[in-house]
């Protein structure tokens, strides 16, 4: 493509792209995000190409590989345009039928549609309950874009916001607009982006930097990856606008090396932008010049913190430094630097093209716009969901997420990553925004939402997070390094049944010290999972310490397996499957677990027929002695 040298050039080229395209031309879009790729979407895409070729339809139907749609669990997702018929879990074997029925015959293939609980097929993606309650501003275009094709992005109006900013706004006006929108950083604490931009812009010095934080380190959250992989230009456009507004000539994208596809798509996108004159010297002939460099992170959770990330780019150990020197004044290479995460940057083009007022019209008083959440764990529909700030947890978990798996009961949702907190059922009506989550002892973080069912033990969950944090603490501050480790020791003995009186209070005490005396957000928020779970589930902690009982029947050391003699039908399944031969029993005899041999592997519990449920987990009580008379009392097959 020829280099575009003016704003008019860009518009003219966009019109050319649109004129070349027929919106009515059939197009098979295949999601090729990482989730769908794991389900072999690439094979499906190839199968479509081959089948279209074989049927002589190659020129008449387009095939497009797109980014993530969010419903990754049901992938590979295939959407047929222009009707937008949406098929889930498409396999290579399904391709000939889809081509013959839908593309040629114009009919819907029922069996590959989403099914409602009532068994009805849903034809369009937007009518699927998972999508119906969402407001997809950032994800909206993914369906229409092949991330490796700049034309696709231009066709949906891409780089229009950049043209607007460069052509009709001063940098100050851009900053003012972002400030007015009240866009808050999507990566962690929710600091107002516009304010940070302004400080960086006004800091003394003739060189300054802008950075994209794509070091998404929160386990369980992957929205940044999906945006970056699926629509890299939306992030880059926001980023270039930010460079212009802040007065930077160079920008850095810091992306985890674990996201190879994101790196690949980014490199390709940067090449395309250079070629098109949208990046480099004298962008679109406006006199503004900007370069973008990509840095890969080598895996350190703490390097997601802004000063740590910057020292990582300098080729050093990614450790945080004290906050009194702000990075907006002295950041990367000691120059004023502005860091925002992927999702934050992706919001910028929307704000510039549609205006701050429009943006501020979405969301709550203090949190504007939408937020992408990674809804995962024990929920029926898992994936990425984008909702306006302020939607209640209940609606997210139940209306969008479709409730808890396997008909179990909701217990809690953990938000904000490892240093976030748990939120119990009584708070399900909480409107989710930055401030409300903080109020209840959790946080937004980058938007992870891990749903937990009643099979979850809270001290065990807290222990899990502390293990992670103890491992990731960079070790610079003693309270974080030693304090988190000590807390982990206490929790470990608790779940082993060796909890001591006063342990819960000791945990609370240590938490305060670690919070107060650590340097960076990792240490300061490390106690959150412990404090919030003690706050809402204190009884459960108490039970572990005082009664040596795990109410959720999770902690192995506190749980025993026992066969209920009134329910056992002597089917022998438990005995047959027990890996250590701990179960004895003959035909028509109640089976018995030898407690000394049992390793608590849970196998017998799982294989005991659901109608029988004779294998029982006990905690905090002695295991009853086997009966003298071992004859089976329950009738075989009878509902127990």
């Amino acid at each position, binding site marked *: 493509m020829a280099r575009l040298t003016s704003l008019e050039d860009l518009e003219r080229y966009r019109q050319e792209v649109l004129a070349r395209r027929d919106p009515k031309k059939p197009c098979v879009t295949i999601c090729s995000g990482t989730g769908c790729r794991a389900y072999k979407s690439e094979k499906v895409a190839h199968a479509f190409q081959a089948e279209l070729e074989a049927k002589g339809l190659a020129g008449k139907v387009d095939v497009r590989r797109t980014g993530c749609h969010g419903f990754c669990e049901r992938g590979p997702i295939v959407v047929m345009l222009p009707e937008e018929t949406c098929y889930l879990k498409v396999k290579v074997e399904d391709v000939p039928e889809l081509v013959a029925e839908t593309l040629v015959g114009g009919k819907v293939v029922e069996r590959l549609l989403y099914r409602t609980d009532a068994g009805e097929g849903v034809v369009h993606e937007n009518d699927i309950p998972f999508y119906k309650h969402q407001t997809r501003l950032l994800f909206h275009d993914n369906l229409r874009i092949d991330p490796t094709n700049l034309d696709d992005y231009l066709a949906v109006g891409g780089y229009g916001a950049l043209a607007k900013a460069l052509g009709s706004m001063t940098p100050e006006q851009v900053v003012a607009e972002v400030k007015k929108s009240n866009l808050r950083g999507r990566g962690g604490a929710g600091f107002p982006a516009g304010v940070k931009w302004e400080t960086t812009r006004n800091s003394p010095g003739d060189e300054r930097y802008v950075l994209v934080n794509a070091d998404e380190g929160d386990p369980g959250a992957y929205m940044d990856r999906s945006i970056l992989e699926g629509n890299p230009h939306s992030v880059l456009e926001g980023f270039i606008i930010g460079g212009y507004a802040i007065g930077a000539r160079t920008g850095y994208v810091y992306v985890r090396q674990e996201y190879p596809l994101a790196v690949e798509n980014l490199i390709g996108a940067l090449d395309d932008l250079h070629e098109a004159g949208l990046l480099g010297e004298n962008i679109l002939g406006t006199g503004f010049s900007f370069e973008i460099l990509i840095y890969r992170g080598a895996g350190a959770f703490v390097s997601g913190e802004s000063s740590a990330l910057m020292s990582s780019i300098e080729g050093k150990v990614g*450790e945080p430094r004290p906050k009194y020197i702000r990075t907006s004044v002295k950041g990367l290479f000691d120059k004023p630097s502005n860091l925002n995460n992927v999702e934050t940057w992706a919001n910028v083009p929307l704000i510039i093209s549609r205006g701050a007022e429009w943006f501020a019209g979405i969301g709550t008083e203090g949190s504007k716009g939408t937020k992408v959440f990674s809804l995962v764990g024990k929920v029926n529909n898992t994936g990425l969901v984008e909702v306006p700030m302020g939607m209640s947890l209940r609606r997210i978990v139940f209306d969008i997420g479709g409730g808890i798996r396997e008909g179990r009961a909701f217990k809690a949702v953990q938000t904000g990553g490892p240093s976030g907190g748990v939120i119990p059922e009584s708070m399900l009506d909480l409107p989710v925004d930055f401030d409300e989550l903080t109020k209840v002892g959790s946080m937004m973080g980058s938007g992870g939402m891990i749903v937990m069912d009643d099979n979850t033990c809270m001290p065990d969950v807290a222990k899990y997070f502390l293990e992670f944090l103890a491992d990731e603490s960079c070790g610079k501050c003693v309270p974080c390094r030693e304090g988190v480790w000590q807390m982990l020791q206490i929790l470990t003995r608790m779940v082993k049944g060796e909890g001591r009186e006063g342990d819960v209070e000791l945990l609370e005490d240590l938490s305060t010290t670690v919070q107060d005396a650590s340097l960076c957000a990792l240490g300061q928020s490390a106690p959150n999972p412990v404090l919030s779970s003690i706050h809402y589930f204190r009884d459960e902690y108490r039970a572990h310490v005082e009664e040596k009982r795990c109410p959720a029947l999770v902690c192995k050391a506190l749980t025993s397996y026992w066969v209920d003699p009134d329910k056992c039908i002597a089917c022998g399944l438990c005995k047959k499957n027990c890996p250590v031969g701990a179960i004895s029993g003959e035909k028509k005899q109640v089976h018995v677990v030898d407690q000394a041999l049992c390793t608590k592997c849970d196998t017998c519990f799982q294989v005991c027929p659901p109608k029988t449920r004779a294998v029982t987990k006990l905690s905090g009580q002695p295991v009853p002695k086997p009966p003298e008379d071992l004859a089976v009392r329950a009738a075989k097959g009878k509902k127990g």
Partner: protein
Amino acid sequence: MPVDHIIDRYDARREALVQILLDVQKELRWLPRNVLKRVSDRLGVTLREIYNVATFYKHFSLVPQGRHQMSVCVGTACHVRGAQKLLDRVSNVVGIQAGGTSKDERFSLHTVNCVGCCALGPVMTVDGEYLSNPTTEELEKVCETCE
């Protein structure tokens, strides 16, 4: 030295240290001492500082790694959906514990915190390919394709 082409790619810039080590790790699957020495000489960074960096980031290994990398995600989303069971299964199939490398250097097995594919949890990767909760049979099949 075989790593010079990597160092040259970054014009031996001091701040490219992490990027250079990433490329070396990718090519050799670990960071041998003589290579680090070379990086130290060319970049003008002390060996001490290089070891500081190499031990700080999770991705680097100072011991030889297997020809095939298996990583089981134990991130939160995978954890609550049975990552431990998957890890046990993989351990059984390849006969090594997490963090280990098989004697014939065929496999290395690691745990990682989130590979960014959480909706499919529990997930693992084999040489960068994602697998969603594979069964023992599926794992055995995958292993067969790994020389």
